[in-house]
């Protein structure tokens, strides 16, 4: 592994930021679509499904890269509880990135909706029709979405705390090239 690495590899950084954008978009699209009866509802649902599945595909690649290249070590002077919090929250992110799209897909399957990604292309159903199962999956997709968003706010605050208060180089490990070059100064 690459204990000496000071930054995530370029593909890892690219995926991090690309997926961050997609996930934030998904969360906003999600809560936006379920709160309107205008035709925007259909448009947003039509984006929500393929984008969610794209996230599922991307996270598989991302996990593979993470297993292959690892991550830069956190600063030695970071208090243990904070290190633990960082590791656990990152683990939670990986879990959510995998589970949320699967829940969406499974929830539609359990309701026997065709899972249309775009006109003429449907995903197969992954569960039989079942009312109780649908209710369970719906609850999970709904509540975990809010957990996901709360965790992102926390993560954002922590990243900015590293960058603006601690100046400890953690932000630079994930920053896009142009920002981190300046940081390493």
């Amino acid at each position, binding site marked *: 592994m690459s204990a000496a690495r000071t930054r995530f590899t370029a593909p890892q950084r690219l995926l991090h930021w690309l997926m961050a954008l997609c996930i934030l978009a998904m*969360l*906003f699209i999600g*809560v*936006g*679509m*379920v*709160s*309107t*009866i*205008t*035709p*925007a*509802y*259909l448009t947003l*649902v039509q984006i929500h499904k393929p984008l969610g599945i794209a996230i599922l595909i991307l996270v598989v690649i991302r996990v593979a890269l993470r297993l292959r290249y690892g991550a830069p070590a956190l600063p030695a002077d970071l208090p243990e509880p904070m290190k633990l919090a960082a590791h656990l929250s990152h683990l939670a992110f990986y879990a959510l990135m995998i589970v949320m799209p699967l829940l969406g897909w499974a929830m539609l399957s359990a*309701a*026997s*909706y*065709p899972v249309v990604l775009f*006109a*003429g292309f*449907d995903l*197969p159903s992954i569960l*039989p*029709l*079942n*009312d*109780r199962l*649908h*209710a369970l999956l*719906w*609850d999970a997709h709904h509540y975990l979405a809010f957990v996901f*968003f709360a965790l*992102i*706010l926390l993560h*954002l*605050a922590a990243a*900015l*705390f590293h*960058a*603006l*208060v601690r*100046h400890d180089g953690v*932000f630079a490990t994930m920053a896009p090239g142009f*920002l981190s070059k*300046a*940081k390493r*100064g």
Partner: protein
Amino acid sequence: MPEPNTHSPRSPIGSLILIGAVVAAGAAAFAYTAGWLSPNRLTPVKVVDALAPPGGPALGHRRNHAKGICFTGEFQANGSGTAISSAAVFATGTYPVIGRFNLATPMADAADGSVRVRGLGLQIAGPGGQVWRTAMITAPIFAVSTPQGFYALLQASGSKDPNAMKAFIGGHPEFLTFVHWATTAPWTDSYAEDRFNSLDSFIFTNAAGQSSAVRWSFIPAAPPVSITPADLAKRGPDYLETEIADRVAKAPQTWTLAVTVANPGDPTSDPTKAWPADRRVVTVGQLVVQKVEPEADGPCRDLNFDPTVLPAGMATSDDPFPAARSAAYAVSYDRRTSEAADYPHSTTGAKP
């Protein structure tokens, strides 16, 4: 975003305030998008809440068209539909159908003689998972021009204010056309004699890429026998359900699917406006209802006949109803499936 100079002299207090502000802005944007800061936004939850009768909704049941009975059968496409839509279900062939005859009421135990409008929920399963769902009613035009109008109607009819209906009609004169139909058109004594209309307009696109705006109707083969609501009431509160079960047990019942194609300029965005009678009609096939089953164990119970579940070759139009209905039906579906424990099951679970 961080400044290029690493050792910014900014005090941590300033940075902490900045971080707090960024997080707060993110949370506020999310809350705004979710509608939590917009109490006036018309959400599907509000619409579904407004459908509830004074005694509260029938738990575990559909929030509208709550009383119904399942059937299965087939759709026999004659191939003519391919002229207007490339939908797989229009290619000559026979496709399995799951459907539901229902009454337009939020009350699951309403008496059949008390409900003016009847409905038909239908799923035709084409090859390759190309599913078409539609939910139609017996009225020839809808009651209101817009989903917002529908919500206003629900509010007015649920209001204790004696002038609420008058005020509603003042703002929605199109409602009177519907009232005229409701008070003058004959009632039939069987679901098998009812004509069911899409009312909403959709866009069909054929293999050559030509699109047309359409509406459709299922026209019964059985000749209508009219009956007064009072006489229907005398036959018992569940007469229509036992009647259709008996009738289908004796012989399959059929409907012809007639698709009406709009001329340019016909009103597609307003289901209260009928199209002129001389429009081109394409007869695309026959619905054959072969078996009727109670809803409790029937295959229709846990389906949502969402009118935006369309196969390739069909799409929504500028009619705002299908989107609004899709959003509301999803809320109704989410609620009723989460209330499975309240539904009077005769056995556990639904058959797929």
